[in-house]
């Protein structure tokens, strides 16, 4: 077991290093520099700042100092927001984005799976048809339209929930709902197909022949085997949700990492972008690693022992 874990750790570190390097050089290819943006006509100030941040040194020297910073887990200072360290930004805003993501997952995933199971078990019924139809419609509507519409209906007309900011729990309800819609429809559809596939296996007929109750057959045998494939891509999905949705955070003005991602790229803020990308890479790799172990626990055939 430990040999496997060491091997996986090595691969993960390699992946993170590769992500950091590729992103570093890709960013440098983008034309323009962050300081021209702040005051376009002032070339002198731009050069002064470039020197200040050491961006005028040869590229490989910058890369080495960047790697050195990476090893000490210090992502440096943001270029556009003067005086703000990337680590502080992540430390302050990642919890908010993560909370939104986790809440959407906690609401969306179980509900999605439940709907998927129910529409598979009571196949052909109203619920089944309803779920299929709604998941088609909900994937059709783009998220920024969905967010705007939900905000107007629940926030402005019905006044059930506050429409913006991230102060109390009540503020988190509307954004979580909007974000979880995508999760629900996705899981519902895939779980239904998996349940139907497992439904045709022989061991279900054996279970029924044993005379155990239908509920136990479905829960103990059918769901247990159907949920396995769902776990594999759960890792990527959790990582995706943790890194936040730019559009939801923009519409509900939530101080999350989403906005930082987009603005730091368009604003060519190299240190901020690299910091966020490497941070995301760590989460993705960690999520995949945990999911693989989890998968081993549930499916004995894959168990790494």
């Amino acid at each position, binding site marked *: 077991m430990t040999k496997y874990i060491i091997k996986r750790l090595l691969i993960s570190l390699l992946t993170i290093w590769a992500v950091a390097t590729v992103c570093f050089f890709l960013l440098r290819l983008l034309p323009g520099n962050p300081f021209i943006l702040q005051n376009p006509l002032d070339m002198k100030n731009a050069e002064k700042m470039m020197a200040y941040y050491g961006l005028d040194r040869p590229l490989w020297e910058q890369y080495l100092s960047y790697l050195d910073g990476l090893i000490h887990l210090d992502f440096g200072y943001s270029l556009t927001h003067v005086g703000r360290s990337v680590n502080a930004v992540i430390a302050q805003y990642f919890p908010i984005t993560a909370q939104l993501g986790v809440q959407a997952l906690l609401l969306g995933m179980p509900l999605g799976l439940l709907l998927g199971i129910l529409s598979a078990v009571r196949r052909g019924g109203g619920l089944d048809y309803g779920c299929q139809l709604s998941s088609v419609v909900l994937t059709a509507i783009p998220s920024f339209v969905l967010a705007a519409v939900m905000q107007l209906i629940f926030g402005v007309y019905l006044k059930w929930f506050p429409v913006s900011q991230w102060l109390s729990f009540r503020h988190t309800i509307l954004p979580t709902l909007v974000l979880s819609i995508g999760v629900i429809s996705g899981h519902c559809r895939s779980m239904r197909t998996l349940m139907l596939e497992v439904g045709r*296996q022989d061991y279900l007929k054996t279970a029924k022949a044993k005379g155990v109750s239908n509920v136990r057959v479905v829960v103990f045998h059918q769901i247990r085997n159907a949920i396995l494939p769902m776990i594999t891509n759960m890792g990527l999905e959790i990582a995706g949700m943790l890194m936040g949705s730019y559009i939801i955070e923009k519409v509900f003005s939530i101080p999350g990492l989403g906005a930082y991602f987009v603005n730091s790229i368009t604003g060519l803020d190299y240190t901020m972008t690299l910091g966020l990308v490497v941070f995301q890479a760590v989460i993705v790799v960690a999520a995949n690693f945990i999911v693989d172990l989890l998968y081993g626990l549930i499916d004995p055939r894959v168990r790494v022992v």
Partner: protein
Amino acid sequence: MSEHLLEVKNLHVSFRTVIGEVKAVRGVDFYLDRGETLGLVGESGCGKSVTVQTVMRLNPEPPAEIKEGSIVYQGVDIAKLSDKEMRKYRGKEFSMIFQDAMTSLNPTTRIGKQMKEMLQAHRKVSDQEAREICIRMLSMVGLPNPETVYERFPHTMSGGQRQRVMIAMALSCNPSILIADEPTTALDVTIQAQILEVMNNLKRELNTSIIFITHNMGVVARMADRLAVMYAGQIIESGKSEDIFYRPKHPYTWGLLGSMPSLKGEVPKRLLSIPGTPPDLFAPPKGCGFASRCEHCMNVCVNRVPPEYDVGDGHKVRCWLLDPRCKADVKPPIGRDQELIPGKEAE
């Protein structure tokens, strides 16, 4: 009529599909006595699996539908029972083992857990007690060190071992009828013999009666006390195995027996084979199902379904050749002699 353990009368089962109704079972009659093994034989697709699965009501009702007929067990017509009521019978009164042992066990749970589940569904037993019963059953089916098998996962065991587990599981609540749906087809010959051995021993010890389904005549010859040959959804010939093997009366049975290589030394003649394929049960033929492939086909065979003729001692044949008015005198093409069934003396 004498008190049979299980009696199926005029059973009609059909499946509703998109392109129409498949009449899988078209009037099947058979009975099973205590401690007896009934062999159900026929080509694949003749409806034998559907028949036994209908006995246990394993097929979900909406697609499957019991059109007519009754299945009487201990005086109760279980064809009319609801699924909930039927659950008490499954596992306790009848239990079933399937053909492909590789996929008949839940791959993600341990053997022991799956066996305990069945016991605790029917009897109030504590975990510890259930464990002992299971381990005893596992040793009865001849599995070495059953304690470890109890803890193992299905994928760590071979096909033969898994089939033994299935048998142990099926018999753990000592049901009165064990239905074996081609239990040995997926196994190679040596393992096949061992499994049959185990089933016979357990039959004697637990006095369970067995319905044995197969398309392999050699296997059924050793197992079955009585035989029923199915073709196109009907039982065309049934009776004691000696009658069927030595005095077959139905052309299809002749063909079936003729296609079996015999163990006698000399080079066997060309094996008989029956030309054509079984009819499509979407539109079953008006008359006898075998008409299109039968050499002695008569007009009546095409137009009318042959009734069951009793040729004595429970040997029933559903074929117009048996009708007194039929003049054609037909001798079975195969001169079967005694040693057809190795180790079983002719009466």
